[in-house]
């Protein structure tokens, strides 16, 4: 089976991401540094399984955001995001 069969919606990474952001993160909008498409984090494509969250752009499949939980530390890599947009009261 292809890896596409195993990918989930970014929403499924909320357990990990909420530990980093401490508040709801799947409705934050991220813009792909590769193609410029803006998507809610919950709508990115989630790969990486138990190693970490690899969230890819639904437009061009480039990595927008990566996160991993490493023995009580959390690592977040936003190199693939041109920017993130968070709103008050969301």
């Amino acid at each position, binding site marked *: 089976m292809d890896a596409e069969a195993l990918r989930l919606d970014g929403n499924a990474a909320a*357990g990990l991401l909420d530990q980093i952001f401490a508040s709801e993160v799947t409705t934050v909008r991220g813009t792909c540094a590769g193609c410029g498409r803006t998507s*809610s984090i919950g*709508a990115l494509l989630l790969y990486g399984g138990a190693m970490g969250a690899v969230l890819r752009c639904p437009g061009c499949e480039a990595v927008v955001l990566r996160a991993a939980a490493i023995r009580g530390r959390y690592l977040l890599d936003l190199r693939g995001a041109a920017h993130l947009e968070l709103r008050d009261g969301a």
Partner: protein
Amino acid sequence: MGAVPSRLSWRVATVRAVQPETQRVLSLVLDVPGWDGHQPGQHIDVRLTAADGYQAQRSYSISSAPEDPAITITVERLDDGEVSPYLADVLRPGDGLELRGPIGGWFTWTTQDGGPLLLVAGGSGLAPLMAMLRHRAARRSTVPVRLLYSSRGFDDIIYRAELDRLVSHDPDLAVVHTLTRSQPPGWTGYARRIDGAMLAAVAWAPEARPLAMVCGPTPMVEAVADALVALGHDPGRIRTERFGPTGG
């Protein structure tokens, strides 16, 4: 709402009840200490720990409404699965179950989000959508909702009686079933996998800009989302929750 710091720490819930739903599906009613509500569509992460330290973790959608005092998850038992057979066969009332949540604000709907609302489910993918329907009923909301629900056979329809009851006194709610593997004698409903023609018949026209929430096994979710886009629905109004490779 906002950030509740303790929200995502692991905690031990107590199983209050184990309710069979169909031959392969059951609901677990859980008492969670300090639970301060959820939004329909959110899930929890469940973590099992063996005596030797081995752990397995899976996500389960909350199928109960926020208005319910206890939270319920609805689990399909996969024969070769690791976690779902434990939840289905081993857990008994009074047992502890470690979990964290509620999680995820993307795949959620409350009556304030309005409609029209198109719900499309396959198998246990009904669980988060059921939370939405129960919440809507608890609030006596009249937001128009249509549920297109794919099951293998008549006896595999989860919450069949409750869905019938909800529809019977609610002119703003429609439930359409399709049975993909076997149909009872005299069945006049759909008898195939959900496709574009079925969605065109059941869903509102794209001009009505329905909000679509699609949940179930990954191949089903992708086929439905693609078909909705092909029918002209705005991809920005389609939300998906993939349950994984199988699960339906």
